[in-house]
């Protein structure tokens, strides 16, 4: 029965010694108690995994809606084609610009954390710009709905308008979630001693960029189908 003598697992050199007290992803990179953010590293696999898992679920949800739309369109001949409100294209640019702003904020924040930049004002400003652009996007989506309403296209008018409202509203809802994340980041960075973690900002930005990608996909889908 006994064939091999068991060896303990090889432990990487940096792990030797007392077991780490915290592998707990979200907390590992918390600033140490003496308050210098300079030593904080981006090493939070749990939050990274978490956001990817969340995005997978969102992808699945929109995939289900997409298949529902394709099936519904193919089921009967009542599909009404209409022109998308032009403001959507402007909104797209705004959303893309917001992603650019967030990336800049992330870079500036990384520079601040690494000690290459002294003040918090610059990353904070870029975060505010991102937030403003995000709000403009949501307002722009609201304008698009008003335009459709003015044309007499309501939620229940036609399956095409139903899906239009559904997709844009659900996307806007998810964008609002992203805005909440941005506000959290701004709040944490703006405190007298910043408690914003690199990983938090990364998580927010993954989510935010995904909203871009999702929106471009939705715009293409709506443009082709409606």
């Amino acid at each position, binding site marked *: 029965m006994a064939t091999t003598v068991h060896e303990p697992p090889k432990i990487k050199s940096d792990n030797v010694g007392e077991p780490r007290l915290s592998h707990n992803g979200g907390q590992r990179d918390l*600033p140490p108690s003496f308050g210098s953010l300079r030593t904080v590293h981006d090493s939070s696999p749990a939050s990274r995994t978490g956001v990817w898992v969340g995005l997978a679920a969102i992808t*699945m949800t929109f995939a289900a809606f997409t298949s529902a739309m394709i099936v519904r369109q193919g089921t009967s001949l009542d599909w009404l084609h209409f022109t998308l409100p032009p403001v959507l294209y402007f909104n797209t640019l705004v959303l893309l610009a917001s992603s650019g702003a967030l990336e800049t904020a992330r870079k500036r924040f990384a520079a601040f954390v690494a000690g290459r930049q002294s003040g918090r004002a610059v990353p904070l400003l870029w975060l505010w710009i991102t937030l403003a652009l995000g709000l403009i996007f949501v307002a722009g989506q609201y304008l698009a709905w008003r335009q459709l309403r003015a044309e007499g296209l309501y939620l229940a008018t036609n399956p095409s308008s139903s899906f239009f409202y*559904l997709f844009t509203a659900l996307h806007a809802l998810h964008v609002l979630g992203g805005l909440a994340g941005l506000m959290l980041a701004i709040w944490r960075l703006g405190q007298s001693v910043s408690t914003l973690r690199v990983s938090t900002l990364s998580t927010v930005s993954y989510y935010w960029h995904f909203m871009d990608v999702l929106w471009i996909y939705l715009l293409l889908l709506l443009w082709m189908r409606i």
Partner: protein
Amino acid sequence: MHDMSEHAVHHHAPPTGFIRKYIFSLDHKVIGEQYYMLALVAVYIGLVLSWIMRIHLAWPNVAIHGLQFLSQTGAPGGILTPEYYLQLMTMHGTIMVFFVLTTAPFAGFGNYFLPIQVGAEDMPFPHINMTSFWVTFVGFCVAMAAFFVPQGPPLSGWTAYAPLSALGSVAGPGQGTGQVLWAVSIGIFCIGQLLGSLNFISTTLDMRCQGMSLMRLPLSVWAWFITSCIGLTAFAVLMPACILLILDHVAGTSFFVPSNLVVNDQIQPHAGGSTLLWQHLFWFFGHPEVYIAIVPAMGVVSHVLVTNLRRPLLSHRVIIYAMVSIAFLSYMVYGHHMFVSGMNPFSSIAFSFPTLAITIPATIIVLIWIGSLYGSKLRINTASLFALGFISMFVSGGISGFFLAQPSLDIMLHATYFVVGHFHLVMAVAALFGIFSGTYFWFSKVTGRMMNETLGKIHFWFTFAGAYCIFMPFHYLGMAGNVRRYQAFVDDFMAPLMPVHKFITIAALITGAAQLVFLYNLIHSRFWGPKAPQNPWEGTSLEWSIPSPPPFDNFGGKLPVVYHDPYQYGIESSTGDYVMQDSPEKIDTVRDER
């Protein structure tokens, strides 16, 4: 900022107040118990509903006193109306599938034991975890609210097929407000489970302690991990379906209602919708849901069985691979629920093959269990009995699946009790046996007290024999042409089958009563049971290396280091015939997964 160093050790400080400790707790263990308690409440509600239905089926004209208080119109004088029978049936299915079979084995046990078994002090996102339970709880309350709206709960079954489910109150009692509440409840439930899955996946991937390689995870962890991957994709599809259904009700859209539909002499104002769209979306969730219920039970049963076998299973890896294949295939078989929907026969074949194929990994797992049992000295206790009972139910229920997987046979059997017998055995009862097995096994860890084994064995034998007495005759009824979802069989060709129905009802009443023994055992042992040692079953996984009940942060301010496979039994060590995963002792082992 000043308290950051404390935070770096613990996720969150131990709560002191009652509310933070027991109600809005961030502790995964409390959340696991909350899920379990929710399932416990739900399962007894579901049980009573099934009793009412069974009594009505066997004696349609007998009044059930007190029922009129639940619904004056649905049960005037205590006798169910046909519609109210269907309404109770809908709620029975909804409660059992969502709030028991998903909630207990996956969310309940998983929340409690997954972080401990991977060697973590908590889940990575405790706030999301707490939200997941409370969202689920709200979903349950919304579902229960359907009992108390004027027309009562919906009558469209737990599958809520369109257009019946999408039309509103014109389609029958409960199809208005009741159906909307149902859809809202399930939509909310989906959010809760998605949040839970997110935590499960992150915990398994990122929170394992030193030395805990993926292959060293106990099979229960693998089962919960795989289930959360299924749940993440399945519930993300059911939620959109519920949103569309709600919109058809409240916003006047036409996603699921076709043109020119006349119901109760009224032409419906909807146009052009697809009734089959609902079925596709629903079953894309619905079939994986079967595995959301059964895979955690497989994990629990493997874990319990191997501990009582006192030797490793024939293969640890093959069980993992088989469970992964089941998860993968579960998305390719959903169409077998729709063989009678008028789908193209070629589509039926396309869904039939994977359905037959998915029995292969399931069979492999069963064969590994049976092969591991062969010639072993199994320790007989309530937990291992229920594990054996699980295998028995799973095989018995699974065999009828071979018949139903074939479109030509399914067309005959689909609308009959054969299907009811099949899914109750293979999904419901089997998963319940998994829950029971886990409960008797882990109770001591959770409460620090032992359950009464004699009462447990009485509970087992009544439940085991009772389940067969109830669900085996269902197959016979189905083959005899007894259609399902009818509320009485007194004045048609099914009248000669009434003695079978009476037998089933009596068996259901006795088996249900045996569950009160379980409830008594659970409550009595919780407060007055004998104190449990730390490791009563001589298990090897990490949950047995900590006190019962576990301290707030599971491992008392430090994290374990793992040196061994999860199931090192049948060896010689200083502790006996096993070695704990976190024991640094060098031993001669059969094999170690690396």
